[in-house]
């Protein structure tokens, strides 16, 4: 092929690629496909780069009271309808217990009163949804690190897995319950709290009552609502479809600091 022919074919090829609406690339969505895995590996790079630069200590920006200009926009599940959840809500959460188990020395079962009796942290932070929007609100809760200290994490624990009351999707096999996980660096981060209060009042059902996670250096989907159990684990294979969260099982990045 001469140079001119090569150029013409190259231009034609490029325009076909453009005109096809990129359907040739739709195979990317197959989460088990090699192309998807290769492209998604960039998330590991983002994770390592942010850990290298940000480490375990850098704080997410905190805002002033004046920056709270609206309620916190609820997203995802906003009204769990499981019998157990509804009964707890009807009882004013008196029967609620947070279980802390897995790779811990002393499994815990903590009431909301137990959690409220522990030292609390209040922070005004920006909630960034993966969709692109942001919303600023004030969150009050107990630092997760203090709860973990009570349970005594074992050396093998690498992840904290959060199990939730809300059915996020109905599948043929029944309801799929929301779950999330974070590494121990974020689990021990000073702004990572189990929040029971929002904007100066009790946490509303739409925003995750009675207890939700705040992980301020990551996107909103990491901040599990309606949490009933925290499990410390050495790996994430045994949960859901093995990617570490409901959304990660559906192709979203497990690390959502970006």
């Amino acid at each position: 092929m001469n140079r001119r022919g090569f150029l013409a074919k190259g231009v034609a090829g490029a325009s076909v690629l453009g005109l096809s609406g990129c359907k040739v690339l739709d195979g990317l969505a197959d989460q088990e496909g090699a192309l998807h895995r290769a492209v998604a590996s960039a998330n590991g790079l983002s994770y390592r780069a942010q850990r290298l630069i940000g480490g375990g200590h850098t704080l997410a920006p905190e805002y002033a009271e004046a920056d709270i200009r609206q309620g916190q926009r609820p997203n995802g599940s906003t009204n769990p309808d499981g019998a157990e959840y509804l009964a707890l809500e009807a009882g004013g959460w008196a029967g609620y217990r947070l279980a802390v188990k897995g790779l811990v020395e002393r499994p815990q079962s903590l009431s909301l009163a137990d959690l409220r009796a522990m030292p609390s942290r209040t922070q005004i932070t920006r909630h960034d949804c993966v969709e692109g929007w942001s919303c600023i609100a004030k969150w009050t809760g107990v630092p997760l690190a203090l709860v973990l200290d009570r349970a005594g994490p074992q050396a093998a624990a690498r992840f904290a897995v959060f199990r939730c009351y809300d059915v996020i999707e109905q599948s043929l096999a029944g309801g799929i319950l929301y779950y999330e996980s974070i590494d121990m660096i974020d689990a021990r981060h000073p702004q990572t709290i189990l929040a029971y209060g929002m904007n100066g009042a009790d946490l509303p059902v739409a925003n995750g009552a009675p207890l939700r996670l705040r992980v301020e250096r990551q996107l909103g989907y990491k901040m599990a609502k309606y949490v009933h159990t925290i499990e410390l684990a050495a790996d994430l294979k045994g949960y859901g479809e093995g990617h570490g969260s409901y959304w990660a099982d559906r192709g979203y990045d497990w690390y959502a600091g970006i």
Partner: protein
Amino acid sequence: MAGSLVYRQTVWMRAAHWLWAVCLFFLLLSGLGIFNAHPVLYLGKESGFAYDNALLEIGARDGAEGPRGFVRILGHEADTTGWLGVSGEDVQAFPPAVTIPSYYSLATSRIVHFFFAWVLVGTLLVWLAAGLRSGHLRRDLWVTGADLRALPSDIANHARLRFRHGRRYNVLQKLAYAGVMFLALPLMIATGLTMSPGADAFAPWLLALFHGRQTARTIHFLVMLALVVFFLVHMLMILAAGPLNELRSILTGWYRVDADAEGEAE
């Protein structure tokens, strides 16, 4: 009159150029896919739901004969059915023809976007190092006083589509290329990082610089538009200035200069 071939683009420069072309193609189309998840741009720290700080919105609403697409900019609205908001059967802000993947999948658009963002940044760093070492940046992109004095005549020449083919870029080329490399792309990277809650923790000055995460997202979108305009003008100029010579130059490095430009200083 055609003169001889000169070696104008090094292999580093050519490789970087084509990697950028691939990256910007994927970044643009995956970015439009991401935008479709929440097709509203705001000014400020957050998105106004109980108040209005929106700059631009692309949306759809029900009409008498099916959904109608619209674009609203600062309260002024235009019907864009067929192009934006609604196109054919698809009710989404940007139509499937310009998104990756062609259907709505925020998760897939995001992994594609961040993969090519890393490739772009890596390529820029290699190009920067190679360009500093070879003198490409200083010799070919640095705008000199003589360049600026030549600006009026250069604009006049471009307006009449009269191009002089020399070893060196003319001043409008320098301004366009330097604007992309040293203004637009750094802005894209910085505003992109400002949208990352992880980056905001270790570089909170980004939020101050761009007046909040949502303003940064808006700037990211506007610079994208500027880069699309650059691409279109870039294509037009190649066609106008001699596409085969320009393509040979960016593929092989060899460029045929005008006969009267042969003695031009390196």
